[in-house]
């Protein structure tokens, strides 16, 4: 890893020399700095956040554990599986519409692994229709692993995880059909979704399934919240996945992002206090002070 970075640096310097300085002539007289000083604050934040995030990722990779709060939706998973077993009905898992290059799909695979482990112990059937062939192979591998680690490799059915169609509405119509025919006791929609979210959630609702959803696509969240029993909102999807898988990359970045949020909250509070003081007193000194204090967010 370090060798690759080093090699890249060398190549980068090489490229630097390769491309002639096209702007050198025009700007020679104008004594402008080569660094855009207006963006200094952004630069400082890039450095700080990069440091923090990479540090957390490295720490997580070297085995350090971090606290992550309980994610409320996760506790209902076991209940949903239990209910399905009791009723003798299957469980449906939809891993979203995007391919494996979407972080949401990767998070979804982690959650599927966790779910499969519970299902293996309960002996209920799991259906996973997918829209991309790559996702199918990833899902099969994940579920197989879970059944193995639960000590139930015999219960694993490869055919229940299958590719449907790349076309959005053809895929949706097919999943709709599965819900109507098989009447699953629980439906999980976790991953990246588009306009089909409400069609799936409505159909699941009409067969009385318990529904748990989660996506980081904000426009689809309202439909899931309104029609599902539980919804993981935005980043909760990643947090849930990191929480269960203890995957250092996800865990580390999650921690780094938390630091960023804390910085935002603190600065908003300070900024509002200073602005309020400024409005109430009209004092020049306050506004001059706040200019310095809030330089990072100018």
């Amino acid at each position, binding site marked *: 890893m370090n060798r690759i970075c080093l090699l890249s640096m060398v190549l980068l310097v090489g490229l630097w020399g390769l491309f002639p300085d096209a702007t050198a002539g025009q700007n020679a007289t104008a004594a402008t700095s080569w660094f855009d000083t207006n963006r200094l604050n952004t630069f400082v934040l*890039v450095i700080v956040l990069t440091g923090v995030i990479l540090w957390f990722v490295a720490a997580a990779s070297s085995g350090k554990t971090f606290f992550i709060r309980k994610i409320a939706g996760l506790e209902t998973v076991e209940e949903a599986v239990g209910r399905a077993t009791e009723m003798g009905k299957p469980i449906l898992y939809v891993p979203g519409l995007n391919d494996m290059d979407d972080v949401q799909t990767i998070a979804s695979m982690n959650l599927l692994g966790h779910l499969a482990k519970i299902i293996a112990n309960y002996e209920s059937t799991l259906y996973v229709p997918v829209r991309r062939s790559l996702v199918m192979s990833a899902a099969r591998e994940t579920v197989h692993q879970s059944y193995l680690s639960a000590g139930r490799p015999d219960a694993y059915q490869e055919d229940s995880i299958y590719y449907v169609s790349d076309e959005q509405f053809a895929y949706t119509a097919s999943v709709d059909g599965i819900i109507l025919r098989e009447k699953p006791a629980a439906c999980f929609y976790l991953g990246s979704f588009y306009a089909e979210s409400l069609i799936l959630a409505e159909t699941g609702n009409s067969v009385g399934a318990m529904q748990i959803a989660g996506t980081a696509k904000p426009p689809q*969240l309202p439909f899931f*919240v309104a029609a599902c029993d539980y919804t993981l909102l935005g980043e909760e999807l990643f947090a849930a996945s990191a929480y269960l898988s203890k995957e250092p990359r996800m865990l580390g970045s999650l921690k780094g992002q938390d630091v960023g*949020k804390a910085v935002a909250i603190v600065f*908003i509070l300070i900024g509002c206090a200073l*602005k309020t003081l400024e409005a109430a007193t009209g004092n020049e000194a306050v506004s001059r002070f706040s200019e310095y204090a809030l330089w990072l967010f100018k």
Partner: protein
Amino acid sequence: MSDTLILWIDAALTLMILSFLYRDNAFYKFAEHLFVGVSAAYWMVVGFWDHLVPNLLGKLFPSLMSGVVPVANGQAAEWHYLIPAVFGLLLLTRLVDRWAWLSRWSLAFIVGGSAGFNLPRFLDSDFITQVQSTMVPLLVFDTGGALLVGASLSHLVLVAGVICGLVYFFFSLEHDGITGKVSRLGIYVLMVTFGAAFGYTVMARISLLIGRMDSLGNWLSSMGL
């Protein structure tokens, strides 16, 4: 003549897709598959003629292309455009299983490029400026110095909403005690936001249906109905 023809094809295809509302059927499947084929080819053609020809081929082979892109006329070839040409062609190796691994090079350029573009811009526009726009006075006065209650309240809702929302998405602290209460408030603000998004999305879908109905209406009135 061609306008009338368009009107009729338009109406036929619209009705074919709408027939899905009754149930999935052969007409719908026909229209859907036609759409997939036509749109993919359309994007390819437009991308080729509007971008590749003037921005790549015209710069690599100016004399050859001067018939189709007048811009290229009399220009010298810019050989450094071989770099994107090679990366672009490598992307197409994905179509041949044996050579597919080579497409990773171009994929690496696209993914690395998006990451490089996005990092400073999201930080600037969606983080720094957003935090800065939220730093507002919680007490708003008019020019005469009187407190404006409504405006102050609105500012309070904004600031509290952003902070509570951020606390809800904060994963390093357990949501109990004061954090729990704040994040609870955060979730209520998010629900209002989702409600607004919900209302807007409904509005959008209805508008699209109106547009379709309108063009069906044009077809009907063209028949004198």
